[in-house]
C-alpha cells in the first residue's frame, strides 16, 4: 500500500466517524492513534484533532443539509433532532458513492425500511415519494403527444395503438397515502393533520404517479383500475387489449368510455411521449 492510500484511508476513517475525531482516535488505541495524529501537523493555533474536526463537521453537515433539502416533508415529520439521527445512521450504512451530492439520498428509503426505530411504518414510503420527486426534477426531457396528435389517429389503428411514456415518470406502489403529508408540506401547511390521519391507517395498496411536465413536478394517487391500466400500457400493451382488460373489471358498457377518459387524462398530464402501432421491441424508439 502506498503512503498516499494509507494516509487517505486513515483520514477518511476519522472524518466519517459518527462520534467525532477524538472518539475515533480513542477507539483506535495506541500506537495507531498516535501515528495517525502525528501525520497531521499541530501548532499553537489548532491541534491535529481540531483541524480534522473541521472536515468531519463539514462532511456531516453538508450532507445532512442536502438530505433536508431533498426530503423536506420527512424532515418536517421527524423534526430537527430525529432527522439529524436519521442522517447519522444513514451515512454509516450507506456512505455517499456518487460524485454529485444530488444522489446522496438515493437509498434513504431502503435505510428506513431496515430501521423501524426511525419512526412509523409509512416513513419509508414518504421517503420513496420524495426521492421520486427529486428524480423527476432533472430526468430527461421529452416532447409529449398533443391532443391533436391523438385525435388524428386513424380509427383502424386504435386497437393496436401502443404508448411510450415520458422518462420523467415514476410509478410507485406505496403502502400508505403519504402524498397527503407531502402535499401539506408543499402548501406550507403543518403536516400534523396528515400525519395523524396516516397513524390511523393500516398498510394498504396506494399506487402513485410522479412525473414532470416542462419544469413542474407533479404527483397523484391512482385508483386500482387506473393503476392496472398504467402498468399495462407501460409494459407495451395495446389500447384494444387495454379496453378488454377494463371490460373484465368494469363491464362492457363502461370500458371504452373509461379507457378514453384515462387516455385523455394521460395526454393532458403530459405523460405520453410517443405513439406506435408496432409491438414494442427492446430498442424501440418513438417519434
Amino acid at each position: 500500500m502506498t503512503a498516499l492510500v494509507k494516509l487517505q484511508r486513515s483520514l477518511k476513517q476519522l472524518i466519517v466517524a459518527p462520534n467525532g475525531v477524538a472518539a475515533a482516535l480513542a477507539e483506535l488505541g495506541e500506537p495507531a492513534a498516535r501515528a495517525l495524529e502525528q501525520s497531521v501537523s499541530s501548532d499553537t493555533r489548532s491541534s491535529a484533532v481540531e483541524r480534522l474536526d473541521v472536515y468531519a463537521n463539514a462532511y456531516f453537515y453538508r450532507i445532512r443539509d442536502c438530505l433536508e433539502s431533498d426530503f423536506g416533508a420527512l424532515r418536517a415529520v421527524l423534526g430537527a433532532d430525529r432527522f439529524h439521527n436519521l442522517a447519522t445512521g444513514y451515512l454509516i450504512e450507506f456512505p455517499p458513492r456518487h460524485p454529485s451530492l444530488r444522489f446522496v439520498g438515493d437509498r434513504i428509503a431502503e435505510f428506513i425500511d431496515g430501521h423501524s426505530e426511525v419512526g412509523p411504518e409509512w416513513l419509508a414510503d414518504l421517503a420513496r415519494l420524495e426521492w421520486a420527486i427529486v428524480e423527476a426534477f432533472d430526468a430527461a426531457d421529452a416532447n409529449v403527444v398533443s391532443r391533436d396528435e391523438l385525435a388524428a389517429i386513424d380509427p383502424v389503428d386504435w386497437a393496436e395503438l401502443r404508448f411510450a411514456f415520458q422518462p420523467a415518470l415514476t410509478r410507485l406502489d406505496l403502502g400508505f397515502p403519504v402524498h397527503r403529508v407531502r402535499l401539506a408540506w408543499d402548501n406550507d401547511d403543518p403536516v400534523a393533520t396528515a400525519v395523524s390521519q396516516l397513524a390511523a391507517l393500516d398498510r394498504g395498496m396506494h399506487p402513485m404517479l410522479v412525473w414532470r411536465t416542462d419544469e413542474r413536478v407533479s404527483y397523484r394517487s391512482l385508483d386500482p383500475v387506473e393503476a392496472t391500466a398504467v402498468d399495462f400500457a407501460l409494459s407495451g400493451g395495446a389500447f384494444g387489449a387495454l379496453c378488454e382488460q377494463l371490460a373484465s373489471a368494469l363491464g362492457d358498457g363502461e370500458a371504452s368510455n373509461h379507457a378514453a377518459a384515462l387516455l385523455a387524462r394521460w395526454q393532458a398530464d403530459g405523460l405520453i411521449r410517443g405513439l406506435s402501432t408496432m409491438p414494442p421491441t427492446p430498442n424501440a424508439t418513438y417519434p
Partner: protein
Amino acid sequence: MRDSTPTRPDAATSIGFGVGLRPVHFPVVLERAAQRALRVDWFEIISENFMIPGGRPLRILDEIRSLVPVVLHGVSMNLGSSDPLDEQYLDGLARLAERVDPPWLSDHLCWTGVDSHNLHDLLPLPYTEDAIRHVVERIGRVQDRLRRRIAIENVSSYLSYTSDEMTEWEFLSAIAERADCGILLDVNNIFVSAHNHGFDAARYVDAIPSERVFQIHLAGHSVQGSMLIDTHDHPVRAEVWALYERAIARIGRTATLVEWDDQIPEYDVLEAEADLARKKCDDSHSDRAQRRSSIGADA
C-alpha cells in the same frame, strides 16, 4: 491531446469579470440577459449540478450560454485520490463540455474521497514529490480524455501533513508546469490557508507562474475559533481585495470570478462585487501604464 503552449488561452485575459451562476438567481439573470442588461461578462457553473439528463437547470444553462461564455468548475474530479479516475464521471463531464464549449474547465488540486466513499469536501494533499507525480499523471489522462487543458485550483485547507516536503505554492506550480495545465488562483483560499497554517500569502502570490493563471477566484470567508473557513457566505474581505490587487499587478489582466454559495444575497450584490474587481483591475493597469509613460518621459 496536450497543448504544449505554456501561454494562457486568449480568454484568460479577455473574458472579463463574472459571477457563479446559482439557481436562486436564474430568473433575474434570464431577465437581465434578455434586456441585454447584464453587468457581468461571463458565468461559472458547478459542473456536477448540470451533469444531469434534463430539466430546468439544463434549459437555463443553454439559454444563458447562448448569450455569454460559461466556464465549467467541478468539485468531484478527485484528482488527488488514490482511487482510479472515475471514467463515468469524466464521460459525463466530456458531454457537458461538448454542450457548453467553455473557454476552459477547472477543478481542485485536492482529493475528495477514497475507496469510492465520496466525502464531498476538498481535502489537501501532502506536498511531496510522490504526490506531484501521482497528480501530474492523472491530469495528463484527464486532459487527454477531455481533449482540453484544464485549470487546477488551490483549495482552502485546515490541515497540513508532517510529511510535507515543500510549500503549497511550490507544489501547485510544479504540478501545473509538469502537467502543462492552467491554474485557477483562488486568492481567498490563499488568504484563508495562510492564516490557518501561518504562511505569507503575499509570498504565495508572488511565486505563482503568471503565464499559467487562466482565472482568479474571489469569495468571502468566516472566522471560526482560531481558524478561517472558506464559507463563500460573505462579501470579499478587504485583505483579500488587497491580495487580489497584488496578484493582478503581477499577473496582469485575468479572468476573475466572484463565488457566493451560502446565505446568497440579491444578484445585484454579486454584480457589485464583480464591478469592484473590474475597477481594481482597471486601476491597476492604468497605474502601470501611467508609470510606464512617466518613465518614458523621464528618459
